């Protein structure tokens, strides 16, 4: 279509030409005048650049966005200032984890060549360097599950290997050598899911019959999968996906819908401690799955955070009936996992779906609602600052 200039546009164009002509042909206004002694210095010209990224600090928090309109993306916020410091592109439903040193970010994600269709590509993307830029990706042989869950991606404690839980064509864990940047093997875990690393190379998965699958490496590099005894009732009180584990000690705290904590020492032959109840730790009767029982229960998207050094478990709690395990928490309960005692009950300013705690000597506690990040003192529960956020999916803290 031929463009016809509008009369008003013509007039505006003529005026602009005149101004440009004046600007080019005449000296600038005030030129030649001597600046006074108090005049501010002349501003210097600049070069556009990228703010250097020094890695996640121990008080930084990173979260993935899970908003249907805004799509994915990973944001990093400084907990001491509540300011956004960096953002990385990701697909929707991506998972992510930081390498040792917290300079390198690994993102497991799915793309389609034509946006919503075309050829599907499942990759582990790598970001790092002084500007947190893309450093390539590793093609994954199997297809990821489209559901953001923390334990679909994990690293070995030394950061040498990545474990990616895949869903198609069968439940399996892809083991990736991050130094060689290649997939080493795929370990099938039929009837099981998620990844909880232990030891130098092993990992465990939760199984649909209430047992645990553990995979350990033989001298020839092959993984052997073993099944444990059943330790929870999956039909009436299943262990939650977002249970916590410490890959350094191998201690996992598998926590059920009704708030029973199953401490398990992950190993080739795992050992199971006697379960204890979060509600009993607070002097209440244990929650049950009986219809009509309104009581305090754990709930949310990421309802648990574990502070390894002080053996403290932070739990988002709400009052609700059975099967309300996704309801956000109006309180954070702080429990001592050695004495099985409730230490604190702190109200959160707004019901929270995710919780996280930093691992340093002066830890920060983060509570995330759909719209806000609340930064709290992890020792007193005092709210220190807050910032508005995009609806969060998953969360990782510095020093993890």
């Amino acid at each position, binding site marked *: 279509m031929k463009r016809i200039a509008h009369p008003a546009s013509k007039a505006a164009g003529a005026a602009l030409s005149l101004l440009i002509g004046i600007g080019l042909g005449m000296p600038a206004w005030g030129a030649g005048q001597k600046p006074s002694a108090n005049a501010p210095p002349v501003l210097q010209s600049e070069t556009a650049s990228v703010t250097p990224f020094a890695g996640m600090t121990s008080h930084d928090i990173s979260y993935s966005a899970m908003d*249907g*309109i805004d799509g994915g993306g990973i944001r990093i916020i400084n907990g001491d200032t509540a300011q956004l410091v960096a953002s990385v592109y990701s697909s929707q*439903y991506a998972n992510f984890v930081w390498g040792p040193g917290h300079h390198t970010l690994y993102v497991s994600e*799915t793309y*389609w060549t034509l*946006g*919503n*269709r075309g050829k*599907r590509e499942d990759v582990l993307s790598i970001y790092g360097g002084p500007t947190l830029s893309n450093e390539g990706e590793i093609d994954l042989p199997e297809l990821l*599950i*489209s*559901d953001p*869950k923390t334990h*679909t991606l994990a690293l070995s404690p030394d950061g040498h290997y990545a474990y990616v839980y895949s*869903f*198609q064509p069968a439940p399996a864990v892809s083991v990736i050598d991050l130094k060689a940047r290649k997939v080493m093997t795929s370990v099938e875990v039929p009837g*099981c*899911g*998620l990844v909880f690393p232990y030891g130098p190379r092993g990992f465990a*998965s*939760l*199984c*649909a019959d209430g047992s645990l699958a553990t995979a350990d490496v033989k001298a020839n590099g092959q993984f052997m999968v073993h099944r444990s005894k059943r330790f929870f009732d*999956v039909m009436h009180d*299943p*262990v*939650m*996906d977002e249970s916590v584990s410490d890959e350094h000690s191998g201690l996992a705290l598998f926590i059920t819908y009704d708030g029973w904590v199953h401490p398990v020492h992950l190993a080739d032959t795992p050992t199971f401690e006697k379960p204890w109840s979060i509600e009993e730790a607070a002097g209440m009767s244990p929650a049950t799955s009986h*219809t*009509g029982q309104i009581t305090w229960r754990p709930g949310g998207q990421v309802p648990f955070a574990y502070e390894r050094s002080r053996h403290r478990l932070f739990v988002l709690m709400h009052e609700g*009936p*059975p*099967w*309300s*395990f*996704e309801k956000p928490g109006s309180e954070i309960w702080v429990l001592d996992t050695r004495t099985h005692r409730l230490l604190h009950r702190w109200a959160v300013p707004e019901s929270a779906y995710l919780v996280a705690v930093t691992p340093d000597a002066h830890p920060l506690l983060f509570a995330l609602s759909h719209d806000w990040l609340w930064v709290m003192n992890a020792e007193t529960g005092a709210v220190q600052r807050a910032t508005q956020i995009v609806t969060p999916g998953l969360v990782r803290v510095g020093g993890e």
Partner: protein
Amino acid sequence: MQRSDLDTWGERLTRRLAGGLSRRSILARLGGVLVAAPVFPLLPVQRARATDAPHETDFSRHAQTHDDTACNYWRYCGIDGNLCSCCGGSVHSCPPGSQPSPTSWIGSCVNPDDQRAYLIAYRDCCGANECNKCSCLNTDHAMPIYRPQANNHIIWCFGTNSFEYHCSMAVLVGLAE
């Protein structure tokens, strides 16, 4: 064959009953129990169960059967996502521009009108951008990801041309009993 102590004990009991009870006396006592039964209240535990419909959940107690654009519509006891009924589709049809997934997760919901449990297939409609209307999150009997056939979080677009999630349906499969 050697007799066990249990055999011996059973034989003695049977002989004692046979010697002390006539057929008529047994019938008379049984009839008395049947006549008297309604007079006595049930035990507290049984009464508690009696007030509970066998499949009732906290969701079904507040569910309704007339508005399928509301999150408490009875079939939505385990739904997670946007209701297709609000997006140009219905409880069992995808909005134009999207396509139904051949895969789904299966839940069971109680119809408050007849108090019976029905199997519901939660099917996602895929290919169009997320509808973002009537977002619901109900979790009756929803299971963790390691039991995927009963997980409502997963994007159930397996088998379609696209993994773009648009909305969710609650398709009636049949009685669950």
